[in-house]
């Protein structure tokens, strides 16, 4: 009698354990067949600057590399630390700081063409990954500031160095993070 009860209890406990283990999220690598969907979700996190600083020719290829586990999550400087955190959460891996060889994270900037110097060579137009530069041969070029992702890919091809990066025209204003004066903690000011 006691033995049957004990065995019953054991079976119950085993069922509980099995149920728990099956309910847990399986690691991402197990779901290889869903790599495509995963790549799409990763691509939604990436900042879409298409700058190639990760070593891939765009955000989509990097997303695919991440989905297939061929690259690490810390190679996207425009995404910033927050991007790494989001990728880590999505891929169920630990947060990693930026790899030492990645370029530093910069604030969002927009390319601007110095129209006095531009010679109309169209090299930057060919370099722009999002077709945000307008112009034609031997005519002055200009950047569509709203479409510019700040990838800086147009800087190096320019033969006359007429492109520079500026902060966006309407810098998005934020309520500042509340800073508590350190003074307030001191006894004399509190008194």
């Amino acid at each position, binding site marked *: 009698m006691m033995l049957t009860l004990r065995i019953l209890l054991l079976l119950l406990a085993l069922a509980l354990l099995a149920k728990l283990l099956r309910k847990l999220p399986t690691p991402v690598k197990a779901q290889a067949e869903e790599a495509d969907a995963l790549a799409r979700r990763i691509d939604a996190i990436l900042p879409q600057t298409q700058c190639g600083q990760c070593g891939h020719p765009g955000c989509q290829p990097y997303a695919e590399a991440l989905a297939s586990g061929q690259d690490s999550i810390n190679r996207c400087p425009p995404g910033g630390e927050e991007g790494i955190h989001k990728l880590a959460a999505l891929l169920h891996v630990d947060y990693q700081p930026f790899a030492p060889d990645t370029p530093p994270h910069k604030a969002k900037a927009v390319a601007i063409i110095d129209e006095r110097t531009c010679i109309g060579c169209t090299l930057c137009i060919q370099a722009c990954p999002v077709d945000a530069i307008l112009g034609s041969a031997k005519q002055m070029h200009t950047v569509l500031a709203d479409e510019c992702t700040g990838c800086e890919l147009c800087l190096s091809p320019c033969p006359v160095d007429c492109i520079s990066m500026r902060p966006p025209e309407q810098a998005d204003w934020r309520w*500042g993070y*509340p800073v508590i004066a350190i003074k307030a*903690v*001191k*006894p004399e000011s*509190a*008194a």
Partner: protein
Amino acid sequence: MTPSLPQILRPGMAWRRQQQWLALLPALLILLLQHGMDMVLTLSLACCTALASEVLGLKLRRQALAPMLRQGDALLFATQISLLLWQGNPLLLCGGCAIAILLRHALGGSSLFHPAAIALVLASAWQDLPAPTSNPSLAIALLSGILWLGWRGILRPQAMAGLLAGWLLSLPLSGLSAQGLSWQSGSLWLLAGWVMSEGASSPATASGRLLFGLLAGMLCNLFCSLAPHARPDTTLAGILLLLAASVPLLDRALMRPSSGRETRKAAGE
């Protein structure tokens, strides 16, 4: 930076402590009337120890002394502890007081573990406490204080209700031994309810607090019926501490994000 807000809108910590003092006052008066000089001595001893350990804790944490001392946290806790332990060894009372307050500081000044519960557990671990005597007037005084605090919005009723319900529910299981029903432990239960209703050591949601109280009441009575010579005060304090540690767990399990329109809209997209 927004301006600091108008004075009228800020009840403030000091106000909360004042109200709690007011609520303790009747119980203190009853004890003073009943025991006279003894009680005064005990109380002053506890208060001195508490103040000293508060100062030490603040110094160690390098915080401003004046505002915290004026707020009177330490004195409040000392009074609560001496209400629990006034019958025992004064040394024990002082030690419990000091350790409880220092532990509170070690956990950042507002921890889940209520100093009164810590002190009681410590004291009972150290030596057997004298059994509490029946004291109906004290219980009534405490009840009136708790009601006052509830009216002021400082204590939430859910934990108390849960405690009562749990206790009642477990009565049939414990074979109506009526361990807690007597006036002996009435004031103890009330103090436990008070401790459990304080925000710092109770779950954030109403359902969490209800469950918290329910669990405490049931566990305490069940334990008393399981263990033949268990005492309600130490049992209650132990269970209180154990449950206090599961407050984050209750919060995690029961706290749900709001499902307002904007959030729902964002989730739906």
